[in-house]
């Protein structure tokens, strides 16, 4: 054993080894953090300095020297926002806001969208550009939106600017939510820092339950089905329609389990340490309309888009058609937030169109409820079926490497579908099917039962919980692929 190599691995940035919640390194560090935290958590300054330091280290391990960009942005926004708040002249105040937004979004635009702009400029002008070699700092989309929410809230006077720089920096960088959300609002988080943190036994247990749930979703379900999905999405034309369809359902499960699993772990870690990070997912595939889907999927992003984009655009206050256009624009930009590619813009735009069509439907076709019970049940089922498959269909464009491959996959599903593949598929890929069904079963649990499940976990004897945890860890080891899979939303 070479101790120097070991320490280098642990302490220094390695491009191919960010700290992931489902890695052994994080597990070890989390034990150390919880141990120190137990001794200092009631002292506000010590707690904030310690967690801020660890969070910056956590970010450094993922993005190396770009931690300086994060620190620079935090410092810049802190002082400019305070200055903006003190400004009495509305015109100057607005210019300060614009400057603040330009700088903050400018970093995001440069690091994430430069090559996208260059490609499209080249297409338009017929010129040719070499791709700029630009590193995408992990989580830049998430922390940029979190910082902007703080700036907008202060500008609108919904929030007083934070006086304590350490508190403010800690709010932006708190490690569970720094690299892949949830995008926590200052109005939720900052007041928690003002009060004395109290760690309740029940919250610790619920936090641990969420961590276990997230780990199962991510490291068992999502990572296992991803191995099959990757194969099919890489060359859909070489597989049958049935195999393609299974990969699409597989990806539908994978992206939910991957992202909501991460969110569960982040929220659970926060809970164990006495912090509330809100919720980010609420059984989205149970939705009966696309509007409901966006109230349940990536809630922290959809509410951000609603509050800081849709409503400022006019929301539903400027007439019906303007409402539809606003919805469309909001989702178009929401799509672009996910990645510098037209396929994400298309994905977002289609969701925007779906939202607008649903609003039209609710306004002109089905404004009320059906009175007959059987008809209402059938209507509910059809609503769910259509909504679910609309979402599933659009995941193809989200996941496929290009439009061509997405259409190729759709062509295979509709052009070479043969249910005779069902039997051989089951015999060869039965674990995949079991994973798919397990994911569907977990998702089918009604939301109202979840608090009961949490409480049942709290009531369970500790020995059983410990046993369940050990079994879970062995399951993770048993099903893991050659290397730890990064979270899908890390790339956004």
């Amino acid at each position: 054993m070479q101790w120097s190599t070991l320490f280098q691995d642990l302490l220094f940035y390695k491009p191919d080894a960010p700290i992931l919640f489902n890695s052994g390194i994080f597990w070890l560090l989390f034990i150390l953090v919880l141990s120190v935290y137990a001794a200092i958590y009631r002292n506000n300054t010590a707690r904030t300095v310690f967690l801020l330091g660890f969070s910056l280290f956590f970010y450094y391990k993922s993005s190396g020297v770009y931690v300086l960009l994060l620190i620079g942005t935090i410092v810049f926004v802190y002082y400019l926002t305070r200055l903006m708040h003190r400004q009495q002249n509305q015109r100057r105040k607005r210019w300060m806001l614009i400057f603040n937004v330009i700088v903050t979004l400018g970093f995001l635009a440069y690091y994430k969208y430069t090559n996208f702009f260059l490609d499209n400029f080249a297409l338009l002008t017929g010129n040719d550009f070499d791709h700029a070699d630009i590193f995408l700092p992990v989580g830049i989309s998430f922390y940029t939106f979190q910082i902007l929410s703080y700036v907008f809230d202060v500008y609108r006077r919904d929030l007083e600017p934070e006086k304590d720089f350490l508190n403010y920096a800690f709010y932006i960088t708190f490690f569970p939510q720094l690299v892949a959300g949830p995008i926590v609002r200052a109005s939720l988080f900052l007041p928690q820092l003002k009060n004395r943190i109290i760690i309740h036994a029940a919250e610790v247990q619920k936090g641990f339950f969420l961590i276990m749930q997230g780990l199962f979703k991510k490291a068992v379900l999502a990572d296992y089905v991803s191995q099959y999905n990757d194969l099919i999405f890489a060359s859909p034309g070489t597989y049958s329609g049935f195999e393609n369809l299974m990969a699409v359902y597989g990806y539908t499960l994978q992206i939910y389990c991957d992202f909501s699993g991460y969110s569960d772990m982040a929220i659970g870690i926060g809970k164990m340490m006495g912090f509330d990070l809100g919720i980010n997912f609420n059984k989205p595939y149970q939705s009966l309309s696309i509007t409901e889907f966006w109230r349940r999927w990536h809630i922290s992003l959809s509410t951000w888009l609603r509050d800081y984009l849709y409503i400022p655009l006019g929301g539903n206050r400027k007439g019906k058609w303007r409402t539809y256009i606003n919805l469309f624009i909001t989702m178009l930009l929401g799509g672009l937030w996910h990645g510098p590619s037209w396929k994400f813009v298309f994905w977002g735009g289609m969701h925007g169109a779906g939202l607008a069509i649903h609003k039209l439907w609710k306004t002109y076709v089905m404004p009320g409820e059906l009175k007959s019970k059987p008809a209402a049940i059938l209507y509910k089922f059809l609503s769910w079926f259509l909504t679910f498959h609309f979402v599933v269909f659009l995941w193809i464009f989200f996941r496929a490497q290009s439009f061509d491959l997405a259409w190729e996959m759709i062509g295979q599903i509709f052009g070479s579908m043969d249910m005779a593949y069902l039997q051989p598929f089951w015999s060869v890929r039965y674990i995949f099917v079991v994973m798919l069904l397990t994911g569907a079963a977990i998702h089918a649990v009604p939301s109202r039962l979840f608090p009961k499940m949490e409480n049942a976990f709290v009531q369970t004897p500790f020995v059983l919980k410990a046993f369940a945890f050990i079994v879970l860890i062995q399951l993770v080891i048993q099903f893991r692929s050659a290397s730890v899979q990064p979270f899908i939303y890390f790339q956004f």
Partner: protein
Amino acid sequence: MKFFKRHWPPHDYFRYLYLLAGTLIAFAVLSFSGYTLQIGSVALKDSKIKQFFYPDTVPVAPKIDSSQITEKVDSSAQRFLFIGDSMLEFLRIRMNEYCKKNGHTMQTVIWYSSSSLWYGQCDTLQHFIKKYNPTYVVLVLGANELFIKDIKTERAKFVSNIVAQMGKLPFIWVGPPNWKDDTGINDLILQYAGESRYFPSKNLTYERTKDGAHPKRESAYKWMDSIAVFMQNKAAYKVLMTPPDTLYGKVPPTVILQPNPPF
């Protein structure tokens, strides 16, 4: 004492902290002991904690057999086995033109999505060597494993196995056309194949298709031209690769293997 009593988190906080630590220690002890637990017919996998502290040592690369080294260009007709991953799509068209020009023949095998993990764990390569009896193998592999973590310890044995499967046959291994820095696959190929049997495609610049990974047709043709120059002038076993005068653009007969891993 009152201070601490007032300030420590609740009992449950420590119970879960101990559970986390205890489980980690238990899995570490099990990993270091090397003992494999069995439940029925299922063997429980190792957590690889020991491997973290004591990474597998990378085996030493074999020396190149003297029969695979030529000082002068062998101008005789070769039977090429052109095998690898999807990068062969356009390369094979240009390679076919080289064969026509120089009197060589070729057999092409594309295994989509393949990697050293796949070729190194099964006898696919050996099977096609037996089937086609080539005099020279051109292997194009590595693009599907550019970003694998700990690749040098995870995949060294597979890369080594692939080289071993070549036996005494002359071969070159065409490295992946990187679109980003890799985590070590090129180093591994270089280590096992040796400088004179490894073509570092990562040093070239490509125009890519929409997927951002595969070179476009014209770019792949230029890539093949560079490989041909290497095969005639720098490779351990030098063969005649005079550039073709015309572009036929014809796809040679190809064996396509389904992108299923052999495990």
